[in-house]
Every structure is written in structure tokens, then in C-alpha cells.
């Protein structure tokens, strides 16, 4: 049930079924580690694609506290703690980001599916990219994981990475 809710909250997946025949797919599985700490707050998480110049090619997900006075911080006040995302993209964006931003998520595995030509991935020029995942937790730490990839993928492949503190196992599925 929990997984179903997470998947269903990703609009891009719905688009994937309508599929253009030649559209490549990018699927990201990311784990928010379960932490045994006295005071736990769900982390803020940003996922984006950077091009070879390290500029943001596409914002894929931003999870933060949407409520003005929530328990996870007051709305956008702590977005700056996603330091790299804030600098590269967040500070120039108007929150919320349609189809990208959403509420913080609990510990566990989360699946994100994106399809070429459809928001938020859109159309990417062929080339080298880096998928960047950043997580920052109140009363916790901050972590950045980078996964280099080539777009569009020539064959189906799975790229693995892992965080050590705020992010767990990360797997990226590419389909031509």
C-alpha cells in the first residue's frame, strides 16, 4: 500500500504508459535510511540532472515541507539547506515546482519514473549528464550523491550508487 501511494504520486509514470515509441526512460530508486535517532525529521530531498557544464538540465524532484508551519520546518525557510540544489536551481525557482516538488517522504524506498519528452524530464540533448541526489535533515546531516550517465541510453542498464548518511541505496534504470 505504501509503495503504491509513492508511485502514484509521480505523475510522469502515468505518462510513461501513453508512451512515445522512441522515448527513453529514466527510473530512480532511492532509499531514505531508517535512522535510530531520538529526534527524527524527514529529510528534504532534491533530485536533478546536471549537464556536462554542471548546469541543471532538469529538476526531477524536490521534497520539502509544504505547510507554512509544519513540523519539518516552515515551508521554504530551510530549502537553502539543500545547499547545492538551492544554489544551482532553487534560488531562481518559484516554489512549488509544478510536477516536481512535493511533501517530504518517510524512511524507505521510493521509486521515481521519468520519460523523455514529458515533464519534468523533457527533451535532453544527447550527451553526458549527472544525476544528483541531495538530502538534508533537520537535526541531522546533509549528503550529496552523484551518478554519471549518458543520455540517451544505448541499451538498458542499471547504475548503482549509495549514500552513507542521509541517503541509502540508489539505483538508476535507463531504458532506450
Amino acid at each position, binding site marked *: 500500500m505504501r509503495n503504491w501511494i509513492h508511485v502514484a504520486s509521480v505523475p510522469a509514470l502515468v505518462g510513461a504508459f501513453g508512451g512515445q515509441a522512441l522515448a527513453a526512460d529514466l527510473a530512480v530508486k532511492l532509499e531514505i535510511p531508517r535512522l535510530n535517532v531520538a529526534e527524527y525529521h524527514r529529510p528534504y530531498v532534491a533530485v536533478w540532472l546536471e549537464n556536462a557544464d554542471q548546469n541543471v538540465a532538469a529538476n526531477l524532484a524536490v521534497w520539502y515541507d509544504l505547510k507554512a508551519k509544519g513540523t519539518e520546518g516552515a515551508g*521554504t*525557510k*530551510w*530549502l*537553502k539547506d539543500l*545547499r547545492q540544489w538551492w*544554489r544551482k536551481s*532553487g*534560488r*531562481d525557482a518559484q516554489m512549488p515546482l509544478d510536477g516536481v516538488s512535493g511533501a517530504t517522504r518517510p524512511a524507505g524506498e521510493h521509486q521515481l519514473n521519468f520519460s523523455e519528452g514529458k515533464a519534468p524530464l523533457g527533451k535532453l540533448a544527447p550527451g553526458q549528464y549527472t544525476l544528483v541526489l541531495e538530502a538534508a535533515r533537520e537535526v541531522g546531516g546533509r549528503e550529496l550523491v552523484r551518478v554519471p550517465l549518458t543520455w540517451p541510453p544505448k541499451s538498458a542498464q542499471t547504475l548503482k550508487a549509495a549514500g552513507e548518511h542521509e541517503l541509502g541505496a540508489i539505483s538508476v534504470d535507463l531504458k532506450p
Partner: protein
Amino acid sequence: MNRVTRAIVLAVAAALPLAAQAHSYWLLPSSTVLSSPQWITVDAAVSNDMFQFNHNALNVEALAVVAPDGSRVAPENASKGKLRSTFDLSLTKPGTYRLEIVRGGIRANWKVDGQPKRWMGSAEAFAKEVPADAEGLEVSETASRLETFVTVGAPTALKTTGKGLELAPVTHPNDLFAGETATFQFLADGKPAAGVEVTLVRGERRYRNQQDELKLTTDKDGRVSVKWPQAGMYWLDADLEDDKVTVKAAKRRTMAYTATLEVLPQ
């Protein structure tokens, strides 16, 4: 007084204005990068150990806070304690705010019956209070600018005034990251200032044994570049002397530019 003693007295008198500068002054904002409009609190003090208030409060009467649109923000809850001054600012507009304390005046040294006298004040007061025929009168003009920057949302361009020694950002002062190189240009009366010595000191001096200061010199275009060795709050100081005075009695003008810059980790 023999000639040697006389020379020593003169040397001491000349050194006094510098001695007065031995303690550094600084502004310390509670945040420099904000992702939504909010309050910040700023400390202001005079001390040798940057950002550690262990000596004297800084007088902030001349403080101006320039909003991104050029309007002014009035500080609230300003108070002066024994060791620091503090004030709050409500930053409501997106863009970069400049906090500045700009001061100028006259510094005079002379002797009365062989004893050195030192005076500092405005040009107006100088004419009234300092005898024009004082023995060994040495007069200099001073111009100093103390700044720090805070950005709500995306950084916006900063305008210089064309007066005194100023920093013209090439790299925005709220966009500094450890391991990256930042470039700043220094201007004297709006023109590139070459050969200016720039000193950078990271805070938290009390947790290390050496100053670990970075010394840089501006190039012909008035520029310096620094690769930030680590994240932290940095104190920047630049000094320049010239002879562009506005008061007749003064021979030299000493200019100082000081800023607090935050460098974030990657």
C-alpha cells in the same frame, strides 16, 4: 631633547594611528543565504579575534542597510552591550541586501610641550579644535567602509558608490564555496585600484594556533582571486593610501575596506 630621542618620539607619534587600528571591527550576520523572507540578527564588535566578541562593542550609529531595490531597511532591537552591539533586520524582498558602515574623518597628530597629542573627528570639528600652527602637525584624511551581504533567494547585482575604497564583486559575495575560486575587484573612487594588499582571515581563531591569514595583492585591474581553502566566515581587509584629500591641511588619505564573507561547504 637630542635628535635621536626626537626621532623616536616622532616615530611613536606616527605609529599611533596604526595602533588605534590594531583591533579589527566586524559585522556578523546570523545568516547570509536565505530561502524565504525572514528576520536576521547581526552582531557588531571590535576585537582581534574575528567574530569572537571579546573586546568592545562596535558603534553602529552610522549603519545603513540597503535593500535590493535601493531602499533602506531600519534596524530593530538595536542595543549596545559591553562586548558587542546587536540589531535585527526584517528582510522581506528577494535579492541582495548590503549592510554598511561608512565613515570618514580627519586624523591629526601633533605635540604640546614635546608630548604627542592625537585627535580624530570630522573635517568641520578639525578646523575648530586643532590649532593650525600646532607643533609637528601631521594631518591625514580617513575613509573606511565596513560591509557584509545577505541574500534572500537569488543574488542580485551590487552597485558601488564611486567613493573611497570599495569592493566590486566579480564573484557574488553570497555565492562563495570552499574549493572554488572567487574574484573581487577593488575600486578607489570608482577606478581599479592596483597593488592593494588584501588580507583574509577565517573566524574561529581561538581553535587554532596560527592566524592562517591569506595575503593577496590586486593586479593592474584591481582584481584578486582567492581559492577558498575551507568553508567558514571570513574577514576581508584592504587598505590603500593616496594623496587625494579634500581638506587642505591633510597630505594623505588612508582608505580601508572591510567585509565579512561567508564561504559554504560543497
